[in-house]
C-alpha cells in the first residue's frame, strides 16, 4: 500500500529566507510524486510532479522539489519565500503502473512572516 508522511504540521519562515517542506513516501514500486497547494477557502492547485529522470523538478511559483530514492523523500523547496506563499501544502504519491488514485499526506501549513 502507498503512504505519504509530512512530518511537520507547521513550518514558519521569514520572508526572503529559503523554505523546505518535507515529505517521505512508501510504495511497493516506482512512484509518481506530486505537490499541491491549497489557499484559504480554495481547492487544491497542482504545483509540480516527479515521474522519472532528473531528481530536481521545477514547478509553479518558483517552487522546486528534490526526489531522493535512497531516502524515499520528495521535499519541496523555494530559494526565497514570499508572504503570499503562506498556504497549506500537500504531498501525494501514486504508483507508476496501473490506474490508481493519489494518496495524500496530512498537509503542512506554511507561514511566511514579513
Amino acid at each position, binding site marked *: 500500500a502507498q503512504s505519504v508522511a*509530512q512530518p511537520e*504540521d507547521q513550518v514558519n519562515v521569514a520572508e526572503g529566507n529559503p523554505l523546505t517542506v518535507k515529505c517521505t513516501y512508501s510504495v511497493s514500486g516506482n512512484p*509518481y510524486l*506530486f505537490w*499541491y497547494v491549497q489557499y484559504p*477557502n*480554495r*481547492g*487544491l*492547485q*497542482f504545483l509540480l*510532479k516527479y*515521474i522519472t529522470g532528473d531528481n530536481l523538478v521545477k514547478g509553479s511559483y518558483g517552487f522546486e522539489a528534490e526526489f531522493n530514492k535512497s531516502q524515499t523523500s520528495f521535499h519541496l523547496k523555494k530559494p526565497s519565500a514570499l508572504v503570499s506563499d503562506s498556504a497549506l501544502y*500537500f504531498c501525494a504519491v501514486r504508483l507508476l503502473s*496501473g*490506474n490508481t*488514485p*493519489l*494518496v*495524500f*499526506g*496530512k*498537509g503542512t501549513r506554511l507561514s511566511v512572516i514579513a
Partner: protein
Amino acid sequence: DVKVTQSSRYLVKRTGEKVFLECVQDMDHENMFWYRQDPGLGLRLIYFSYDVKMKEKGDIPEGYSVSREKKERFSLILESASTNQTSMYLCASRAGQGVYEQYFGPGTRLTVT
C-alpha cells in the same frame, strides 16, 4: 484550462437527511474522485470512478455512495447524513492512466446539524 465545478460551496443539512453533492468536469476525463478533508487528517479518498457506471471504494466509503451516469458528472450521496460527516468535500478529475495530475474543484463545506 480544466474546470471542475461543485454544485455548492457551503451546505447545511440536518441529521438523517439524504444529501447529494454534485461534481462536473469539462475536459472529458475518464477518472473522477471524491475526497473529504479534515484538519489534521489531510485528504482521505471516499470513492473513485474509472469510467461511466464504474465505481471503486476508497479508504472511507462507509456512509457514502456514488453515481456516475455520464462521463462528466460524478455525484456523492450521503444516504442519511450524520454529524460526523461534517467536513470539506473535494472532487477531482484526471485524464487516463498516464502521468497526469488530478484537478480539483473548489470544495463543498458541508455542515450536518
